[in-house]
């Protein structure tokens, strides 16, 4: 049975999104082999919550985000959004559901149509969905542009390339907001920006979230960035979830060995601390032939025989804190109780 367990799923009326046993596979040419991009993960997000999704390049973060949007549809598993099973939806119902979820991408400039004026780009979704009168559309677009710090007049005259990377990311954010979505999936929205612009965009997302009552999924590889914006963080490794915890808990008491690696990799802006850190060796194994048992076992300093044969299931180690590891660095709840 694929999957790393569902102990961490919450039974709450406030659940906005619930993913269960999500699997996404891609064929490798005509070899009959497949890329195991996402291998049976389960997650939930409450209304108004920000869920951080963090992990190395290629671990399946973007694929998860796209599978939630049904772009493309997952190989198997369930995605429930606002009480509707998305994997069963087709046609207009699917299109309608997609307006309730929006995605923002890493490369702000190339994700905007280069030939159109910025104000038109932001207005486009309203035109497509024929929302409101011309007047109402214009008002809405201008107020959202103001909100994200872009001058609507300049936006009416200029194309994306006339704005900086950080400004283009603000424009993408404005565009994602015009249809009043309830969920925004941010896929590495600040990874291409320098640190000062990154801080501006992160602050903006926090403000907009409060103002519009948004729910966010925030994808990134930098745990310091993810921790700053998220309420809860899920750590992914090679298509699986290793650990789920409230952001502060994840940093204070990481339970999975891979989470420690991620924490150790963040460059610390302090020369006294920085020199004591050493990077993990090796590369993640191929998702075409993932190692049996715990997928982290080839690089894990604590791996034992059982790690190479049996897949660990997510189990609680604290309040809202779950880990999928046979030998976690924090004692599991069921053992602590004995």
């Amino acid at each position, binding site marked *: 049975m694929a999957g790393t367990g569902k102990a961490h799923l919450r039974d709450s009326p406030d659940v906005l999104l619930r993913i269960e046993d999500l699997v996404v596979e891609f064929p490798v040419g005509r070899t009959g082999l497949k890329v195991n991009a996402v291998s049976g993960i389960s997650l939930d997000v409450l209304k108004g919550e920000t869920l951080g999704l963090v992990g190395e390049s290629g671990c399946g973060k973007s694929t998860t985000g796209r599978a939630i949007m049904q772009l493309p549809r997952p190989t198997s598993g369930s995605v429930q959004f606002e009480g509707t099973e998305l994997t069963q939806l087709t046609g207009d119902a699917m299109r309608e559901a997609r307006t309730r979820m929006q995605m923002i991408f890493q490369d702000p400039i190339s994700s905007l149509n280069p030939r159109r004026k910025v104000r038109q780009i932001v207005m486009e979704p309203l035109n497509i969905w024929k929302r409101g009168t011309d007047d109402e559309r214009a008002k809405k677009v201008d107020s959202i542009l103001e909100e994200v710090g872009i001058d609507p007049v300049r936006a009416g005259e200029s194309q994306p390339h006339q704005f900086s990377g950080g400004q283009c990311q603000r424009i993408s954010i404005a565009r994602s907001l015009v249809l009043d979505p309830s969920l925004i999936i941010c896929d590495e929205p600040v990874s291409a920006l320098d640190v000062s612009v990154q*801080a501006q965009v992160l602050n903006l997302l926090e403000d907009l979230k409060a103002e519009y009552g948004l729910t966010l999924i925030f994808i990134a590889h930098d745990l310091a960035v993810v921790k700053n914006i998220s309420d809860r963080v899920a750590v992914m490794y090679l298509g699986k979830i290793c650990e789920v915890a409230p952001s502060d808990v994840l940093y204070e008491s990481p339970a999975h060995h891979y989470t420690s690696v991620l924490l150790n990799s963040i460059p610390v802006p302090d020369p006294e601390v920085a*020199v004591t850190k050493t*990077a993990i060796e090796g590369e993640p194994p191929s998702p075409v032939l993932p190692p049996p048992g715990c997928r982290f076992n080839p690089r894990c300093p604590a791996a034992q025989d059982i790690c190479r044969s049996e897949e660990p299931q997510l189990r609680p180690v604290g309040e809202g804190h779950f880990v999928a590891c046979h030998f976690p660095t924090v004692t599991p709840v069921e053992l602590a109780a004995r």
Partner: protein
Amino acid sequence: MSDLIQASSRDIDGPLLELTDVTTHFKTARGLVRAVDGVSFTLDRGKALGIVGESGSGKTILSRSIMGLLPPRGTVRGGSIKFEGREIGNLGRKEMRSVWGKEMAMIFQDPMTSLNPVMKIGRQIAEPLQIHLGMTKQNAWATAERLLQDVRIPEPKRRLEQYPHEMSGGMRQRIMIAIALACGPTALFADEPTTALDVTVQAQILDLLGEQRRDRNMSLVLVTHDLGVVAGHTDVIAVMYGGKLVEKASTKGLFANMKMPYTEALLNSIPKLEDRSHTRLSAIAGRPPDLVNPPKGCRFAPRCPYAQPKCQTEEPPLVPTAEDPNHLYACWYPVGSPENAEIKVRLAASKGALAAAAGGN
């Protein structure tokens, strides 16, 4: 790590690199872009220098100016660049060719676009060895294999036969480093070598660069916008703003005794792991200056929280601190000075007054 090709350890006194008032301007339709505007510093042999600043501050153009890798048309260069005591600031591309590879090498941000997609990795490393060092083909391929080992690529022999697209981003960047190291350069320029990579791979690559620098007694210039990246991997840091050098100090000295409000602001904008989640980040307001019409006085003044009338009219010179002659900064009211403390008190008071006024409604 057996017989590496060592950095040419010619015993020449004095610094490896000496820049005096270097300017690089570009003629454009809008006017002259002052990308690098009067930068002076020296770099000692075997040391690692970090060049830090926001996007557009001139980091890349400064390193390209030193390497002599600038667009031939519309570029106006000034000042002096001495490498091992020899003036190279006025050399053309043709003359620089003898310097590239053996004396100085560069690795770029995007390893995919800088590798040849249709040439085997082995050939991309071996060919410069044959050309620059006159090695036989067989020798060059054997050296290439050892270089891949040095940059920790598993199964180097098999990898030599592969193409760039068959490798991950982290591996491609290792290949770039191997190519840059091939001819045993005295100085390696790494321009945002890890910006396109994820944090785990970034940590690996930075460790690798540090290790190779020590093993080869090579100088390293690390260009980045992230002060976190240079903190653990450099001896000296130069901070650039709007084409100017605004602070330079030993890495320890800089972090212990930051003088420039801009450096402080850059540091504060980085999310810190130890802060609680949802801690408001202190972003730097506004945008970097327009390099065609830079602000008069201090170029940071429009965005500086401590700016005073003097900052808007008079440009602060680069001066040493009282404690350390090698710690330079350009600011009228440096962080930690009594004048700056006074401004901080006034700012806090007016903020308090504002809050009180708002609360009183």
